[in-house]
């Protein structure tokens, strides 16, 4: 019952925000996740999705507003899950925002903690999530690792250094009531498989990394010894290949001593033979695994490609200038927050997705051994248009040699046949772009628009194919339902 009320309240909140016309921007992206053909992105206002294909240069999803970001997104099994921030300061649990990509339904779900039992034992927030076939794994602050099945809405708690698991509704059990340790505080999870092909889950706790083998329900603790002077202050993130238990990377805050005031964050690789973490480099904010032995690191506004070898890593190519593609704020380039390699099915290539504070980029033709600046493309987010042709425009509004095509963006309230014509300043007819072409209402389209970009564009020519003179032009968009709109375009070439 509580779950149902929570879900209804969440959906209503989401719906109200959507109706209010809030806009998610493509800036300030924090994290991304994806598999198959869908890429999910989180920013400070909500979660978005786009189709993870090289030929899709526009975001296609407009999903959640006022999501109250908590910083993680996971995708799998046709669903995406984003932990929400607590709704009130007094809450000690948080909800999950769940979107079913196959049905298009968004909902708010609770992991299922027993609120009364957990109330006195601190916070049980979900702070990280990852997917393995059939279930999400949730990293819970004070709650260990939870295997959560969204279809069943049920969770099972795996508590570090404890050989038993519990239904989340029964947690905490009596035998843990008096236990007071830091092991249960899990900040991140990274699933993988062991040499036998069974699922394993690495869990980042404050001082150590633990390894959960769900099938027997056992935990191992990895050493936190370093091959450099210093001590582990905290683990910030874990990166394990989903298809192999080696290698394992972590971002670790390292201090000179337990009492040192300053810390540095290193990307480290775990050496299982020596049971030590090897510090590789500082300044790394994200990591993703490419095909084969390729590894991509994000550092500031750079993407670095490495090749893993038995003796270490060989740096391949640095992309220091990649964000020149979209220079904003007087030349301040974006800072990368996350990167994700999505392999193409059936070949050796894939696309590298890059999220930053200035937007989303992907490498159009990613090659295994090569990244070049020109491969990177910025994927823009099309603004939401109000229905009924209350919003319409051509973009770009200035036709130039660099931008020779201008697409008409519009959103019909109902399916209709559409005519778009161009006129000059004297309103002499110039050309018809589309004539009585059927178009779907925007609400039936994933993009929220009725536009067919491949057809609803003007290239600055008249009805006989000749180039028009530079100047101001006007368009008339009229639908068979009676909706109509007018606007302006400049031809400057």
């Amino acid at each position: 019952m509580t779950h149902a009320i929570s879900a209804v309240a969440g959906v209503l909140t989401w719906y109200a925000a959507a109706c209010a016309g809030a806009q998610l921007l493509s800036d300030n992206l924090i994290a991304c996740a994806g598999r198959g053909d869908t890429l999910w992105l989180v920013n400070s206002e909500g979660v978005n999705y786009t189709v993870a294909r090289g030929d899709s240069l526009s975001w296609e999803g407009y999903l959640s507003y006022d999501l109250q970001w908590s910083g993680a997104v996971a995708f799998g099994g046709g669903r995406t899950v984003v932990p929400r921030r607590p709704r009130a300061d007094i809450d000690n649990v948080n909800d999950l925002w769940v979107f079913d990509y196959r049905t298009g339904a968004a909902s708010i779900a609770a992991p299922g903690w027993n609120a009364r039992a957990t109330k006195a034992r601190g916070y049980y927030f979900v702070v990280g999530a990852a997917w393995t076939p059939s279930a999400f794994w949730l990293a819970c602050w004070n709650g260990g690792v939870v295997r959560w099945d969204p279809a069943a809405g049920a969770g099972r708690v795996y508590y570090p250094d404890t050989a038993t698991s519990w239904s989340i509704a029964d947690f905490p059990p009596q035998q843990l009531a008096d236990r007071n340790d830091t092991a249960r505080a899990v900040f991140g999870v990274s699933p993988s498989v062991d040499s036998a092909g069974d699922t394993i889950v690495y869990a980042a706790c404050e001082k150590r990394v633990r390894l959960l083998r769900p099938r027997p329900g056992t935990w191992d603790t990895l050493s936190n010894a370093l091959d450099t002077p210093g001590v582990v202050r905290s683990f910030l993130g874990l990166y394990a290949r989903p298809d192999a238990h080696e290698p394992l990377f972590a971002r670790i805050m390292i201090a000179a001593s337990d009492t040192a005031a300053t810390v540095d964050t290193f990307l480290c690789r775990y050496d299982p033979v020596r049971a030590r973490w090897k510090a590789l480099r500082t300044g790394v904010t994200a990591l993703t695994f490419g095909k084969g032995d390729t590894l991509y690191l994000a550092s500031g506004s750079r993407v670095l490609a490495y090749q893993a070898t038995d003796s270490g890593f060989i740096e391949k190519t640095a992309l220091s200038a990649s964000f020149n593609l979209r220079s904003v704020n007087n030349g301040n380039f974006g800072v990368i927050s996350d990167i994700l390699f999505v392999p193409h099915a059936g070949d050796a290539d894939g696309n590298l997705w890059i999220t930053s504070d200035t937007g989303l980029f992907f490498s159009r033709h990613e090659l295994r051994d090569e990244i070049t600046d020109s491969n990177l493309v910025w994927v823009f987010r099309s603004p939401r248009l109000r229905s009924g042709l209350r919003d319409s425009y051509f973009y770009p509004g200035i036709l130039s040699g660099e931008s020779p095509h201008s697409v008409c963006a519009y959103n019909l309230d109902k399916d209709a046949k559409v005519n778009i014509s161009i006129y000059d300043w004297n309103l002499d007819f110039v050309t018809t772009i589309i004539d009585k072409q059927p178009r779907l209402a925007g609400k039936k389209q994933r993009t929220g628009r009725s536009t067919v970009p491949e057809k609803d564009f003007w290239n600055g020519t008249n009805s006989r194919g000749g180039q028009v003179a530079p100047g101001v032009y006007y368009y008339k968009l009229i639908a068979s339902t009676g909706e109509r709109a007018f606007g302006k375009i400049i031809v400057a070439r």
Partner: protein
Amino acid sequence: MAKSLWHGSAGTGIAFCLLLASGETAASSYLGGAGGAWLRAPAGATALAMGGAASASPAYGSGFWNPALPATFHDSRVSLGTGLRSLGRTDGFIAIETHRKRLGMAGMLIYRGDPFLDNLRNDEERLLANGAFLALAAKASLSYVVVPQVSAGLSLGWIYQRMPAYFDGSSESMSYIGGLDLGVRIRPAERLSFGLVIRDLNTVLEWQFSSSDYAFNSAHADTVPVSITAGSRMETSLLGKPLVWTCDLRGYLSAVDRKSAVLCAGAEWRRWERFCVRAGLMDIDVDADIFSAPRTWASHLAPAVTAGFGLDLSQVRSGLSLNYAMATCRIWAGVDQQIDVVFAL
């Protein structure tokens, strides 16, 4: 007599029309996109109210309509006006016309533009800074009465245009000196006038567009279509009150890729001593499609219906008059309005 002269005037127009139609002419739709579109709109509320037909004998603004006229005026005139057209287009003008014996002179500055370019987007669909399109044309005219029934004149033009051309909000501008207009006015009878005007000879609009990528820099030299206008004006009466008919047939000889023509007609009825009403039809496509492809012709047929009035304010100030006009928008996006004041000195 007057009736037969009117028939003669109409016949001249029709003949001119057929002359254009017999060649490689097409609907004025083929004119759209040619350079200097803003030069094709009528200037002045009186002319607009009468369907944009004022080439035979404009009340004022002869620098735009027919440079042969100033020499025939009996007084000097200063006129100024402004207009707001549909879709945020604006215009304005100031004109002065004077004469000395058989020599007439006129000067006119015409403004056309769109100061409301406020929903332009870049290629990322981000809103650009508001911009404005500005176009100015200045014409200096000289005319001469050759014989009492015939006067001739010419005017030289200067054109300036400025418009947003880049996503960063900066604009590009161009100016040109040298456009030439030639005009003749024939008055075979006291109540009948004909005008023949060739406009925009050798008028070239040259743009230079630069780019962050040198490969996309471009220069664009765009020739404004030369137009030949045959106009007529006949004075008659209706219900015992003075009635003026005007008709202009304007052919464009160097449109974008084909020739085209439009017909404009209007009337002014002086029912009251100090007040007159005007009405007209503007920009009726006239071309070979009437016969060869009537459906195509009809689909692009979008004349504007015009109306207006003139008010003699001599009681306020000697020689002062006020004119107002409104016209339907050819694409039904609003109405065009214009208001002028004229001082006859």
